[in-house]
């Protein structure tokens, strides 16, 4: 009993419940996805799921299409969001806080409700639902995720660097392209990640905004899981996971810094 007591009061052991939880609900599920992806319905090892993926032009086509749509959405968000973040970073801090609040506020509303609102807006303006509505809806949903990190880095930027560049004779354009933009890259990168990752994997948005006319990769995963094609669904999830993992590796450095900021390491 005394030993148990001491074990309990060693505070580094307090993380134990959470460690067990993480193993069961985070690590094990991902391992199971990998296991299921390499099995057939009877549980034998197979590569059939991946062969199936490559041999189905419809699925590979959807995959490429989803990535393209996600990249277009991210690019539009960046083009629209960067100037907004830049303008806000130049505002007086009091009004900037209000504007940033206004941008974040819609994010607190359920995404399905926001998407429903987008659908009704298109109906109201008598515009057809389809690819255009899909991209608008995704930009509408994820634009704040782009603005916020960029605004943060711009805001924290050391203004004496800008002044130094000006003193050394840089034109306003040079100041932006040589000083401000490079320094805001961490914000741009995390903004891109925060928009790209969810847009690649979305499925409900696409179904609602295109009346099921356009299917994204997420839709196909969902259909397979729903139709008890678990192994194929797991294989498709694994493919998505690999793509996302590869994208994350490029930006790992920055994530690492974010974590440092949050003080976990």
């Amino acid at each position, binding site marked *: 009993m005394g030993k148990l007591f001491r074990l309990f009061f060693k505070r580094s052991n307090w993380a134990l419940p959470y460690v067990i939880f993480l193993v069961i609900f985070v690590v094990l599920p991902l391992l199971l996805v990998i296991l299921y992806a390499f099995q057939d319905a009877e549980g034998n090892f197979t590569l059939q799921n991946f062969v199936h993926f490559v041999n189905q032009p419809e699925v590979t086509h959807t995959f490429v299409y989803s990535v393209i749509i996600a990249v277009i959405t991210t690019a539009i968000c960046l083009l629209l969001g960067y100037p907004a973040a830049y*303008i806000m970073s130049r505002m007086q801090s009091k009004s900037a806080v209000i504007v940033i609040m206004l941008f974040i506020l819609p994010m607190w509303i*359920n995404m399905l409700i926001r998407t*429903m609102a987008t659908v009704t807006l298109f109906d*109201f303006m008598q515009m057809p639902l389809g690819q255009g509505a899909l991209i608008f809806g995704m930009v509408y949903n994820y634009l704040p995720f782009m603005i916020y990190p960029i605004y943060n880095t711009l805001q924290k930027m050391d203004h004496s660097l800008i002044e130094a560049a000006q003193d050394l004779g840089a034109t306003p354009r040079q100041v932006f392209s040589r000083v401000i933009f490079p320094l805001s890259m961490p914000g741009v990168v995390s903004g891109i990640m925060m928009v790209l990752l969810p847009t690649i994997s979305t499925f409900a948005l696409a179904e609602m905004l295109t009346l099921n006319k356009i299917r994204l990769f997420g839709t196909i995963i969902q259909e397979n899981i729903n139709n008890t094609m678990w192994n194929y669904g797991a294989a498709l999830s694994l493919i998505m*996971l690999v793509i996302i993992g590869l994208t994350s590796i490029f930006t790992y450095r920055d994530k690492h810094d974010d974590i440092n900021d949050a003080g976990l390491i």
Partner: protein
Amino acid sequence: MIGKIFSRGYLLLLLAMLYAPIVVIAVFSFTEAKVLGNWTGFSTGIYESLFSGKNVLIMRSIENTLIIAVAAAAIATLLGTIAAIGIYNMRHRQRRIISFVNNIPMLNPDIITGVSLFILFVFMGVTQGYTTVTLAHVTFCTPYVVLSVMPRLMQMNPNIYEAALDLGATPFQALRRVIMPEIRSGMISGFILSFTLSIDDFAVTYFTKGSIGLETISTQIYADSRKGGLSPEWRALSTIIFLAVLLLLLIINYRSMKHTHAKHSAVRSK
């Protein structure tokens, strides 16, 4: 000056785009037409029918959403806070490993979290329902609790806990009287964040809700829109949710402004 007007105009335009759909919904929640865009005269009929609870599906989905959000946020806050204290007292290497795994649910797209948990529950042969949805929500909420409690622990003077022990407090008392007050704000923001994440979730809920007919607001909207035609009550509900969120954010912001203001004046008076 022109630049200023131009930049203000640009921000206004973006905000107009963000708010247009919500405004359309709010305006048309005051008319009874089934199809949106038909104005059949001002009426509060939709609100009356929402509050009368005639639409059982909507009422039940609101109830489920709130129950699951409160349960998941409470469990996540408890689990995450205890974990944060533990991680804080760990050695560097262990910390790194845990923080890496802690990041996975935050970086994983919803659909991957959903599918992987679905496969876990299938593998374990668990019937999916309230419990599995709540556990799934705890999975993606707890990392945020850990991340909001951790900075508070870092800011804390590590000696005050030892001081409390030296002055004769039991470890429990020291935890309750010394550590808890220091990290309370982190716990509260972790709870609020978890609550909103849980309410907002669609994909993870969708994959873990099973086939017992459990629907939250998100999955119910999805199911309705698949059947074609959302019932008009959703317009009233969305408007109410929007106003509630607006009010909540105003209160939080007002409080934090007062808080920082008080801090600043305290610093100044020193």
